[in-house]
């Protein structure tokens, strides 16, 4: 239970960074931290006490494997997170090129 709470604290740090900071790169950093926390939470829910990793071996008969389903979901979500982070960075660099700043309070005339 304490592990879940520590994971939630990590998510709240990312949320705080997204909502509170003014720099766009800091906001991207917050998105990354929140994403790590969500991935870790998924893996934590699938862990089994004294379990083995879900890969069969030719000579050993493994019985207590951890849950492979959250691992499969998270594995795809990580790569998608990288692609969306790259998209965010591209938009941030375009904004810097157009307005000359990363500060989102100075971008008033954001019209496209």
């Amino acid at each position: 239970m304490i592990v879940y709470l520590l994971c939630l604290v990590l998510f709240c740090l990312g949320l705080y960074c997204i909502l509170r900071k003014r720099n766009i790169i800091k906001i991207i950093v917050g998105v990354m931290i929140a994403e790590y926390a969500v991935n870790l939470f998924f893996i934590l829910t699938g862990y089994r006490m004294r379990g083995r990793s879900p890969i069969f071996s030719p000579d050993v008969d493994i019985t207590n494997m951890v849950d492979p389903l959250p691992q499969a979901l998270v594995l795809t979500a990580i790569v998608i997170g990288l692609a969306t982070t790259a998209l965010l960075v591209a938009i941030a660099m375009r904004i810097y090129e157009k307005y000359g700043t990363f500060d989102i309070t100075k971008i008033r005339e954001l019209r496209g």
Partner: protein
Amino acid sequence: MIDLYVLLIFMIIGAIIAIEVKDLLSSVVAVGAVGLGLVVALLILKAPDVAITQLVVEILCLIILIRATLKKDLPFSTSGRWVLNSVITIGFIAVFLLAAWKCLRELPEFGYPTMKVASTYLKEGFSETGATNLVGSVILDYRAYDTLGEATILFAAVIGVLAIVRRIGRIKRGEIVEEDDE
């Protein structure tokens, strides 16, 4: 499980440093430290596939972010926003923590999952798909629709980045453009 607690506290400290430091490059490097801590935590939690993926994705993410932050003298505007924003932030986090606390009591205890669906995969996955890596069999055989959707999202993200970044087709200043009005 004491090593997991130590790693999580390390990740929280790294996240606080990444949020509060003034230099952007230091912030990005601290996020890299958080990600590498996550890699070790995933290895402890017996998820080697996810650990390898997280490691390489972390490296590529750091390269992209350092490319975005490195080359210039940026104003260090890391101070917060106005007062209303602080109140909204604290309220939002409090509501989230309350709801999460209500939900967490319904979850099974850590280390003893129910595994209603996964027990079928564990029992019959080897004979039905022939793959010895059960994560691979879940990704590409049982739940291949998910993977098709994720590949579509990745494709769309690639097209989006190429469309945002490209310069071809930009109208030059002072050039007479004939356009069809519609």
